[in-house]
């Protein structure tokens, strides 16, 4: 029994890290641009396809492919900000509806290019780590390790660079940030680019575990959505806490009850939190 608990704990932390990568991008885009980005999952899907193209078609090393995916996603994000989202900066609702349209375009574009069938991704590592009775596949450990590295890198960027400070200032107060010389025309595209890059990186990391198809974006979007609501829209510490919580809840309920029960419990939790405390567990109050 204690081994089952330990195993659930480890699985929960792995899941939580992955959810966190999705959720931080989602919450960053909301915090900076006030856009609820329903296309976020499609950028996860595009990251997975970018990794597939890099590794199997071009024969590049996995690490280089991931780096290229992130660079490509930042550029794509800046482009999407310019073409789709910029006109809706002062209009949260229209920006969100536009993201629904963007999601349809991206998903069906991928369907047109790659077809509906799931594509196999060559596994990067094989075998398992054994700690006592616990089993941790090496492929999952790799995804976890790289995920943590990317998250730490993102944290350092956000807390200790000029751009990062500008981004945080913009999240707190747009007018005051602009007064202090934060330039929205640079920081907005960068913010969306970074948010999308985190989703794409998660897609690239998950591709070897879950395979690649045009439809894989839906689940990560839902998870990001749940995490961000629980943690508070726009709050990064809240997202960190909620992602770990969600990972653990899912892992424990699916070990001890059932997987569909886990889904219902988390969605009921989301509805409850929205009703009782719309700003989330750690979010700031609505202004």
């Amino acid at each position, binding site marked *: 029994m204690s081994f089952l608990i330990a195993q659930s704990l480890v699985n929960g932390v792995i899941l939580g890290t992955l959810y966190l990568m999705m959720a931080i991008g989602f919450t960053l885009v909301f915090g900076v641009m006030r856009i609820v980005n329903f296309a976020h999952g499609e950028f996860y899907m595009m990251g997975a396809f970018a990794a597939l193209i890099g590794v199997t078609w071009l024969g590049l090393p996995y690490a280089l492919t991931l780096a290229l995916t992130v660079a490509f996603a930042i550029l794509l994000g800046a482009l999407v900000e310019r073409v*789709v989202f910029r006109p809706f900066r002062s209009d949260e609702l229209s920006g969100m509806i*536009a993201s*629904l349209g963007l999601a349809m375009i991206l998903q069906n574009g991928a369907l*047109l290019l790659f077809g509906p069938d799931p594509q196999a991704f060559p596994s990067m590592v094989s075998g398992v780590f054994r700690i006592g009775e616990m089993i941790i596949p090496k492929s999952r450990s790799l995804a976890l390790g790289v995920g943590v590295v990317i998250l730490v890198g993102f944290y350092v960027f956000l807390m200790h660079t000029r751009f990062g400070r500008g981004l945080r200032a913009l999240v707190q107060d747009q007018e005051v940030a602009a007064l202090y010389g934060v330039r929205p025309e640079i920081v907005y595209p960068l913010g969306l680019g970074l948010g999308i890059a985190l989703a794409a990186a998660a897609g690239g990391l998950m591709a070897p575990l879950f395979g690649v198809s045009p439809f894989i974006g839906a689940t990560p979007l839902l998870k990001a959505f749940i995490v961000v*609501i629980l943690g508070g829209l726009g709050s990064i510490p809240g997202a960190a806490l909620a992602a770990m919580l969600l990972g653990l809840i899912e892992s424990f309920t699916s070990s001890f009850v059932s997987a569909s029960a886990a889904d219902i419990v988390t969605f009921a939790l989301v*509805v409850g939190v*929205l*009703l009782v405390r719309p700003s989330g567990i750690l979010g700031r109050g*609505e202004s």
Partner: protein
Amino acid sequence: MSTVSTMPATGRVSVGGAVFAIALVVLALVPWFTGSTFHFHIAIMVCLAAMASAGLATIAWVGQLSLAHGAFVGIGAYASVLLVTRLGVPFLIALPASAIVAGAVAYLIGKPLLRLCGVYFVLITFALNELFRLVMLEFPSVSGGSSGIAGIPKISLFGIVLEHQPEVYVFTLVMLAFVMALLWTIRNGPLGRRFAAVEENLVLAEASGIPTARTQNAAFVIGSAIAGFTGAIMAHYIGFISPESFAFQLSVSYVIILVTGGRLSLAGPLIGAIFLVPLPEFLRSAQQYQHIIYGVVLILVLRFLPGGLAALPRKLLGSERSGG
């Protein structure tokens, strides 16, 4: 001066209204000109989409966007199908009953829900739509589970079964006319004026003594009841429902129709459905592009025509006037 310049404008609008009404009647007759069963089917789907989107529009009139509209269509569909197949209730009673069930659910959850506004309301309705799907999948004895319920009896009125598409089309057309007439009456009555006041400025409406919470709840109940009503007709026409039929995608399609047609006008949902539902048929050679085109149309309308296609004539006339 201002009265002089608005006089011809109102005249033009009523001429425009007459042209619009004639165009609608001609469009509604198209399937009889071609005589094709397939065109009748498309016309039925246009009517159903217009009806459900009109329900969504009612909620939009108080300034809220619901992403749970597909779930309410589902509630109506399941209510009617279960009443007819399990309890042997005639369709003509099950149809209003399904609207009442959907409206009652909306009434119960509306009060806490409508305290949220803007994107938070969208997010909670999105979560509720997903919760509806998951819960229905958990109870296969009621919902048929993931394989759904097939072989639903066709629409029957006073013992006459509507076997063929033309008959169903006439029935759906009458029902659509009924729903639109109802909404027209509401819009032009005291409740409609309260809707508009709440949409325009919630705080001001509250300060002027309008019970904003009850007004928003009324719109939510009416809109969701219309969704349930549509769901009942849809289920008995198509003959198959499952929890997946009423997932996120259906709610999004109604949002696209509403936004493209025009969020705040009565004709918006009609125009949106007439424009978008048959679109894939004109693009038959390029069917895989249809969703991409929907996405592009949605973003372009939001960007360049925030009032939707319903606002297009006025916009064209307006720019003509300023140009000339």
